[in-house]
């Protein structure tokens, strides 16, 4: 029954989007975490999505042309390679010899956009799951 697979598909989407929201939260929380003169500064994290079969039997049958249940998973979490923000603040305890403090390369605007997109995508997945639930509940009343 394909309708049951929708729960796995939408569930995988919700898990992936919540992980994305997690990285956004981590990035935003660390936006002002200063690093010392030589220690590493926090760099922004991003998730990479990849489509993946939701159950093992499906990935084995992938050679066929059948309708595969493709969910989504987080393939990797990458860290941004952009240089850290350098702020001139000689009175800061973490400032280096020239008076600069290294701050994470987190772009607050990007993160806010990412957050809204993740939240909307999550809502979409919930909507999909609700529709599948309603359809299954109606199917259960068949013949009564």
């Amino acid at each position, binding site marked *: *029954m*394909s*309708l049951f*697979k*929708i729960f796995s*598909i*939408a569930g*995988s*989407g919700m898990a992936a989007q919540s992980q994305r929201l997690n990285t956004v939260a981590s990035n935003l929380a660390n936006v002002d975490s200063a690093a010392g003169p030589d220690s590493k500064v926090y760099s922004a994290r991003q998730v*990479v*999505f*990849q*489509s993946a079969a939701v159950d093992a039997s499906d990935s084995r049958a992938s050679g*066929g*042309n*059948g*309708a*595969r*249940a*493709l*969910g*989504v998973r987080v393939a990797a979490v990458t860290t941004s390679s952009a240089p850290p923000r350098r702020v001139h603040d000689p009175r800061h305890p973490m400032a280096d010899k020239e008076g600069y403090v290294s701050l994470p390369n987190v772009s607050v605007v990007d993160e806010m956009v990412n957050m809204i*997109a993740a939240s909307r*995508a999550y809502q*979409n*997945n919930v*909507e*999909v799951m609700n*529709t*599948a639930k*309603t*359809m299954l509940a*109606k*199917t259960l*009343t*068949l*013949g009564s």
Partner: protein
Amino acid sequence: MIDKLSEHLRFNSEALRLRSTRQQLLASNVVNAETPRYQAQDFDFARALNEATARPVSNSNPGRHLAPALYERVSYQPSLDGNSVDLDAERAHFADNALRYEAALRILNMQLKTLLSAIQG
């Protein structure tokens, strides 16, 4: 006799099965709306239903179904990461398919009720 009964219900039960397969496919499209290089997939429902109902029922393996032929949807606004999912269109297809599933369900229910009233008199 039982053969005739199941033949009577076959069209709508096949329709129901294909609708649920399509719903699953559309759910995959919605979920992968932001996956790089994902291609939105769908199948031609009318053709799949024709193929499924034209075939005689095989008595040896009645549970075996023909998988519908998939095609990749043409995107009107493809994105740079190679993803071809158009979320508005997918959501519209999803809602439409759910409604048509319900319609097939209702007709099947009516057929069953008709049969039942014929049996009970």
